[in-house]
């Protein structure tokens, strides 16, 4: 199963109780949301990617979504390397309201994994 991780660097992107990802974690920038394909990696390797992307910021956790999760909200995944394993979630509608709704639904499907 393909798994894509969205790294979380801010408090406002998730809640610990009950554990969940907020829609703000999947906010669209320039028509895409940046993720990494992590199903072939172990946890230390995944966290090392997160740290290497933003060495000066604390990694709070990650939100994992599957390809099925992404496609179920009518979005797609696109390979965009380098860096290795980097992907973009694409296919977002142009209208802000539709983006908000899709981000909300995708966040609901995401699994929170704290660092």
């Amino acid at each position, binding site marked *: 199963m393909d798994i894509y991780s969205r790294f979380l*660097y801010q408090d*406002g992107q998730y809640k610990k109780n009950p554990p*969940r990802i907020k829609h703000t974690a999947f906010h669209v*920038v320039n028509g895409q949301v940046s993720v990494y394909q992590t199903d072939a990696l172990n946890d230390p390797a995944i966290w090392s990617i997160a740290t290497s992307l933003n060495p000066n910021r604390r990694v709070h956790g990650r939100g994992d979504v599957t390809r099925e999760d992404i496609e179920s909200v009518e979005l797609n995944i696109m390979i965009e390397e380098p860096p290795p394993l980097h992907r973009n979630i694409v296919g977002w509608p142009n209208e802000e309201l539709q983006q*908000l709704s899709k981000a*909300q*639904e995708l966040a609901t499907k995401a699994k929170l994994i704290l660092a």
Partner: protein
Amino acid sequence: MEIVTGKSSYLTALMVAAGPASSAVTTHLNIDTRHLEEDRSYTNQQNQFILLASLRGILLDCSRSGWDGEKAVPITGSVIGNAIKVINTIPFTVGIPDISPQPNGKIAFEWYLAPYHQLIISVGPTSDVAYSALLGSQRIMGWKQLSLISDLIEEMRAKYGLIPTIR
């Protein structure tokens, strides 16, 4: 930290709205509602205090470009001003929302009851407020004028049960 309490007009307003029956009942039962009024005033002010404290944190952390480490738009004073208007509209009888900054420079108010029972109200610098809700398999979304936000909150509470009522 100081929370200032004061005499609230909420209960009085409710009793006035309920009409003479309300006064008759309280008189008959000899209920002293003054403490209740103060309790509710305290709760309301406490909730507002929590929300305003969250908002202050957002202002401090998110007022510059790229506050998310990427390309986030700064949260401006006008967005904070509109968020305060929303906070002042939230009645003390409903659960308090989570407040989060959005990378597009807006602020989200979120009531989350369950994965498919949740509401987001997104406030920006203009008078147009976006809302998006998941209600089972339903997707409810739209725009509302800031001046009508209390209608939206009441509709989401009463019609869809997306905002919890505190008793």
